[in-house]
């Protein structure tokens, strides 16, 4: 394989570990939950009833003691900013704000605003696998050009963010149906296998992600089909093709590339003989550096 000598660590150079020094920590109910760019911090300073700034921090006002008060205040501010065009990609989906999955949320917030506040979000990834003798093939999706994030890039067969109030199991069934026409009987066979994390700088702010990865073994005659217009096409790749692509190209969106790297590690396609093996594993499993408050 021509690209075999090229280090998989290049995936992480594409999105270097964010330098968090210029960011202000976002504090809700005395807990550090995100990172805010200086420009957006100044925007929030226009709403002193709800936000106050210190040297290193932006606080949602402590006076907003109940989650309902916090949700209302933040929703009002975001609605004003949205009117001004300050929040691209508005989704009308609420995301929970907390420091670990399943913990009671401190706040619920519009999905499109999560990178502005540098909030940790959760998502599911599904590797669609097909048996190929003793080996595997893997279904790859190309994102539609109309997607707000990473249009046209390669992705997993099924993936999606986890909004507030939807369980992982229900979200898995919903995304399998919408994104690849995988029915519930088949989707229920998806097996949870790992957690990968990411923290990257995006145009609007910081994307902090925790991804729950699943493997789903699909029948050889199954052909994924997209129903919601989010996927342009599906391709069935060999693991060689996948490894070669990850080593040589930047075709995958970042969280999908991480899920695929994790897959290659778990399937033993990349092993201790790869000089970067331990560094790669460390990078896949790094928790967000919340300051313990």
């Amino acid at each position: 394989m021509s690209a075999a000598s090229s280090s998989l660590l290049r995936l992480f150079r594409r999105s270097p570990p964010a330098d968090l020094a210029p960011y202000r920590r976002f504090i809700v109910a005395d807990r550090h939950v995100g990172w805010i760019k200086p420009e957006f911090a100044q925007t929030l300073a226009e709403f002193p009833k709800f936000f106050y700034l210190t040297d290193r921090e932006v606080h949602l006002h402590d006076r907003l003691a109940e989650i309902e008060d916090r949700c209302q205040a933040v929703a009002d501010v975001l609605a004003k900013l949205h009117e001004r065009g300050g929040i691209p990609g508005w989704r009308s989906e609420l995301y929970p704000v907390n420091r670990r999955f399943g913990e009671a949320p401190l706040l619920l917030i519009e999905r499109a605003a999560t990178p502005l506040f540098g909030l940790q979000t959760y998502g599911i990834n599904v590797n669609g696998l097909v048996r190929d003798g003793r080996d595997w093939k893997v279904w790859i999706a190309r994102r539609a050009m109309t997607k707000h994030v990473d249009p046209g890039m390669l992705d997993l067969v099924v993936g999606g963010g986890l909004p507030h109030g939807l369980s992982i199991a229900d979200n898995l069934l919903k995304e399998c149906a919408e994104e690849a026409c995988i029915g519930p009987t088949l989707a229920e066979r998806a097996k949870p296998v790992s957690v990968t994390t990411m923290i990257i700088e995006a145009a609007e702010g910081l994307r902090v992600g925790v991804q729950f990865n699943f493997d789903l073994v699909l029948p050889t005659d199954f052909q994924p089909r997209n129903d919601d217009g989010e996927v342009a096409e599906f391709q069935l790749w060999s693991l060689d093709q996948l490894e070669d692509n990850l080593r040589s190209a930047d075709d995958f969106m970042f969280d999908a590339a991480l899920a695929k790297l994790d897959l290659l590690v778990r399937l033993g396609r990349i092993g201790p003989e790869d000089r970067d093996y331990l560094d790669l594993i460390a990078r896949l499993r790094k928790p967000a550096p919340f300051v313990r408050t």
Partner: protein
Amino acid sequence: MSLIDHIHRCQNADMAKFLPWLIAGEQAGWVRRDVAARLGNYPTVFAVDDKQVRLRGHLANFDHRSAAIGDVARDLYEAGVFAGWRNEWFPVLTRFGAPPLMRLERAAVPLFGVHGYGVHMNGFVRDGGRLKLWIGKRADDRPIEPGKLDHLVAGGIPLGMGVKQCLAKECEEEASIPATLAARAGPVGAIRYCMEHQGWLRNDTMFVYDLELPADFKPVNNDGEIASFRLMELDEVAEILSAGEDFKFNVALVLIDFLLRHGHIAPDHPDYSELALGLWRHDWM
């Protein structure tokens, strides 16, 4: 006890109790503060201050370092500072795969807080749609964790041995798994923990392998390290883990990893992401 307690138990090291130990400007380990004071008694070998322990610069190559520190280790062993001399060499590395800076007696690895590398292999059997794991019981005369439950094959990687070679050797010695079968074991990841264990630092990376075994395979121990083997349902493994400390401390981590990778612990577990991310200690080397 719950599963997450095994993570906390193995990731409990408080580095404030230790001083960095440097060779040629690179960190090679961690030394307990009281041990650092003792190392100050060997001024031709170590320069000790309140921030760090440095190996003297005149010890500039593998042989000189190994000889000088070997003498100090022997001295401290004879003085009763640590026990269990093994006559096995471990490499001192700043990065796995890099040339070793020196070699060190295995029993002195925790004394200097040197990063150890090992292989751990889960041997499993498919029974219909279910998986079962071969579990060993450690012999009562083992220096570490006697009588505790263990997985099929595990061992530290000594000086001059590669990961696969070490795995093949341990497969033969610990479970009589023939080389052709052992060669089918696949790497599935790695676990890093840093633990204060009986006052010493265990600073370990475990290369993890899975091997699917034929239904009629029976492991037989060859080196006296394992007293008996038993095939266990994953539910039973999870129950024993949840009930207490019957498994050797680091084996619990390898088993939690196995249960996670094979979908036996699902994201609705309240500690799911903490379990998954807790299998890697990030703060050094």
